[in-house]
């Protein structure tokens, strides 16, 4: 017994120094917790976040040409404040005429749907509300158009995978 204890201690002693080089289980715990608490606090499921991301791509591509698959939308916590962080790798700014064309096309579609039946008008109202929300977020994204956005992408992709994984887990249960 004493020998076995001794052996474990010696091994444990050297392992401890090895472990410091890898990502510690503590960091894993903190990161997993942050993601899951964000979901708990906001009621935004991974599906909803993905939908929000897609809608954001659709909206913003009217104004800028961007790497659509790389657009990342994440919830982050800064003290007590929960922030919606949007990072968009911009390929190039669209020129005035392109933007005008895109907007004109949209107006045309709107006009068409307004002519349609009452039921459809209701849906249109919803769309308008969404546009308002989106425009707020657009302001956020102007702030975050720094160079380091792209670096974050890998991490946040991982986070998204985690979202999906954790969702699967709960479904299994």
């Amino acid at each position: 017994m004493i020998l076995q204890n001794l052996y474990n201690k010696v091994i444990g002693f050297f392992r401890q120094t090895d472990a410091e080089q890898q990502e510690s289980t503590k960091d894993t715990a903190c990161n997993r917790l942050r993601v899951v608490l964000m979901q708990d606090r906001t009621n935004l499921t991974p599906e909803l976040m993905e939908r929000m991301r897609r809608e954001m791509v659709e909206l913003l591509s009217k104004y800028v040409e961007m790497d659509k698959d790389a657009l990342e939308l994440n919830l982050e916590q800064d003290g007590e404040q929960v922030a919606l962080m949007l990072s968009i790798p911009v390929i190039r700014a669209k020129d005035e005429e392109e933007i005008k064309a895109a907007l004109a096309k949209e107006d045309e579609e709107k006009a068409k749907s307004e002519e349609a039946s009452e039921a459809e008008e209701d849906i249109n109202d919803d769309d308008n509300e969404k546009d308002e929300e989106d425009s707020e977020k657009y302001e956020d994204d102007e702030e975050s158009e720094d160079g380091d956005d792209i670096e974050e992408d890998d991490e946040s992709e991982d986070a998204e995978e985690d979202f999906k994984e954790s969702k699967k887990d709960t479904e299994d249960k």
Partner: protein
Amino acid sequence: MSGRVIVITSGKGGVGKTTTNANIGTALAKMGKKVVMIDTDLGLRNLDLLLGLENRIVYTIVDVVEERCKLKQALVKDKKNPNLCLLAAAQTRDKTAVTEEQLKEICEKLQKDFDFILVDCPAGIEQGFQNAVAGASEAIVVTTPEMSAVRDADRIIGLLEAKEEIKSYKLLLNRYRPNMVNANDMMSVDDVVEILSAELIGIIPEDTGIITSTNKGEPIVNDEKSLAGQAYNNVARRIIGEDVPFLNLEEPKGMVAKMKKFFSNLIGKEK
């Protein structure tokens, strides 16, 4: 006199709510405060065991509510400290036997005679939690540096924030293991405080003495040598408004210190 009603809650079970209740209550009573503890964990009562009062209970909170006895008759005095009383939970009934209103009324009555009313909350976020919180204006959220406990604490904090009656809540980090934290195998105090963004009222180190003191039915604050006992005493002092620094739980760092600890552990084992 209008006593402070503090609910001790956690969401997750087994993180040390009842132990915290027994120790803070005893520590406050030792400081000369008049303290009553209410066990609201109907059907799963344990506070009586931790205080060693299990053989003295005649009436429970359900008897009070159903008017089989007066409130004062149901209060069990502690063996050592006459300042300390327990209002036990009923073991044979479930959470529906007492309502939010009834608990509120009991707390209001007790406020007249006691400085502190500590409400021991059951695990979970259902009616038992709602009842326990009903009469309280302050809360202590107990958690451990484990993911599940922190997640549940976050949920509880969310629910407490939604309650108007709860004016303040503080975090108590229990079962802390400094050697694991140093090895980066456990979340640190700072990690938990940052994730929950809540104010800390105490850090209680993991201590085998908790089990032995429970075996004896005597709260660990009575053992002044124990680190956990000291930590609980400090929590009680912070509750009454004293500015007490947090205990230094950090283990020695660096290679030399590690070697020292390593060998002293070895010698300790061989004895």
